[in-house]
């Protein structure tokens, strides 16, 4: 029996000729990631256990992105603890305010992840890098500490669900609509403990940013990882960013999949997930018109340049509706700069949006856009759990940048197709 793409990467990193679903293995790590919430906890357990060395100072990344620029004294203390740890061990990749960005947009941009690599991160959305054909998965702080100490960690080899994509996306339909649709199909635990392996002729038509968005939310279906094949677009993306050798793995033709989901990309329409689970997915036309108070465009899911271009296209020459607060957050410094160069920043500000510094901020109800009781937000983020963005009686509707921007203009949940048709 052949191996899936994920299984091949895990086998190679465990120095085993073959692994199969259910095997418990110890695999070498190419990169270990943490942020300002999870790294301090990892540092505490690392020190408590008495470790005095890290496995490789060049293969640990600490990104201060969640509560930064620090929202209060307590978060400032956490950042200080992370900085001190980085200084103590000479960690090469510490990204602080001014260089930082949202980790899962930043790491690929900086060339810190390459196809075929094995990455753990103390952040659930670490699965984003599967877009590059890497095995990457979210873990907790103790796993991060173990990874920093040993350069390896334990994994249960996952079974896989094959997601075959056909066709191509229509106008104003994006990677976000694909993943919300998929989670709606299989549920928030539909891929629990498993890999989501994306394949099929539809992959080639997806931009890298769409693939990052799709892989990013694999965790929202419970998946261990989401992964895309390595093709011309991924090679083009890593060229100039990654300067070390890397390996493209392919699933064996006889790889075993537990099930298969087929999605015809051309059949999808803009899709949103209503409160309070990402699996409450609905085509926009069934639910448009819902009252809203706030719009957030950004995050590790949708804060990349093509996301902001999609939002700006709709906001250009239009205004955010009265009574709506629209917060635009480029994911990284590079995306921010690109927004300024392309005039997108001006478009957002002219439209009446606030154009923020890179931060995870409002996605997790941290800062820069928390909501009051009874408020509702259309957000390009990834979770709409109870109290996720603020008060327990506030609500989050997950959507693409195009839907979020259209809703900001309309003042209610709206379809970008309607807004652009109206002219």
């Amino acid at each position: 029996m052949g191996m899936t793409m994920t299984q091949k990467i895990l086998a190679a990193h465990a120095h085993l000729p073959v692994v199969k679903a259910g095997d418990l293995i110890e695999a070498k790590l190419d990169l270990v990631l943490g942020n300002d919430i999870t790294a301090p906890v990892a540092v505490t357990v690392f020190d408590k256990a008495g470790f005095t060395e890290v496995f490789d100072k060049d293969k640990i990344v600490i990104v201060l992105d969640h509560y930064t620029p620090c929202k209060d004294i307590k978060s400032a203390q956490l950042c200080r603890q992370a900085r001190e740890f980085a200084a103590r061990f000479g960690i090469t990749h510490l990204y602080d305010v001014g260089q930082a960005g949202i980790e899962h947009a930043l790491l690929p941009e900086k060339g810190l992840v390459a196809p075929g690599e094995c990455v753990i991160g103390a952040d659930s959305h670490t699965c984003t890098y599967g877009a590059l054909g890497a095995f990457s998965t979210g873990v907790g702080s103790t796993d991060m500490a173990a990874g920093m100490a040993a350069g390896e960690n334990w994994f249960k080899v996952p079974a896989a669900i094959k997601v075959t994509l056909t066709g191509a996306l229509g106008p104003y339909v994006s990677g976000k609509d694909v993943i919300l649709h998929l989670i709606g199909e299989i549920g928030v635990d539909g891929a629990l403990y498993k890999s989501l392996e994306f394949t099929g002729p539809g992959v080639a038509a997806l931009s890298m940013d769409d693939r990052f968005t799709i892989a990013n939310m694999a965790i929202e279906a419970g998946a261990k990882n989401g992964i895309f094949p390595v093709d011309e677009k991924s090679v083009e993306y890593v060229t100039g960013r990654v300067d070390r050798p890397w390996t493209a793995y392919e699933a064996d033709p006889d790889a075993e999949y537990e099930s298969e989901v087929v999605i015809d990309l051309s059949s999808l329409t803009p899709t949103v997930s209503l409160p309070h689970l990402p699996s409450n997915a609905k085509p926009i036309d069934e639910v448009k018109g819902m009252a809203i108070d706030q719009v957030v465009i950004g995050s590790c899911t949708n804060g990349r340049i093509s996301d902001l271009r999609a939002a700006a296209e709709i906001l250009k020459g239009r205004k955010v509706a009265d009574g709506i607060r629209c917060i635009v957050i480029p994911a990284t410094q590079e995306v921010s700069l690109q927004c300024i160069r392309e005039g997108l920043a001006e478009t957002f500000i002219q439209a009446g949006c606030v154009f923020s510094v890179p931060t995870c901020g409002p996605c997790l109800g941290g800062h820069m856009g928390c909501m009051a009781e009874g408020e509702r937000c259309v957000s390009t983020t990834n979770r709409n759990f109870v109290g996720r963005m603020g008060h327990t009686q506030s609500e989050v509707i997950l959507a693409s940048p195009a839907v979020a921007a259209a809703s900001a203009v309309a003042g209610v949940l709206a379809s970008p197709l309607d807004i652009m048709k109206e002219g």
Partner: protein
Amino acid sequence: MKAGTVFKYGDNVDTDVIIPARYLNAPSPAELAKHCMEDIDPAYAGKVKPGDVVVGGWNFGCGSSREHAPMAIQASGASCVIAASFARIFYRNAINIGFPILECPEAAQAIQNGDKVRVDFAAGLITDETTGAVFQATAFPEFIGRIIENGGLLPYLKARQKGKE
């Protein structure tokens, strides 16, 4: 061990309700415990006593990777979580910090809020003393058993490192 009182919740109990992000800026176990379950059960932190048992449905602990979630439940005094299934990062985190979790769909369904439940961790046996029902939880693989025996992943790694020296 003594029987504990059950605090029962539904499916998809996510890490944002186990410990809301607004409290992650103070990651001491005692601080986290004060706010554990606050957004679905504000009374939990005030009522839970050492040895009590949290019971959830499917996909317990879904969402964020925050280890603060099992830390908060552990620090609240609960002796373990029994659920029909666990989200994978929560599952790893609980094992890694040495906090017992038991996967048992039958127990998760049958046990009711307020029941008195006793757990034999070594045997994976769950006894509902209120109803007399006994359930067998899924056994841990041997490797994971060794991590738990050592009190968590880092003590396990440390012990292994010493073994090599």
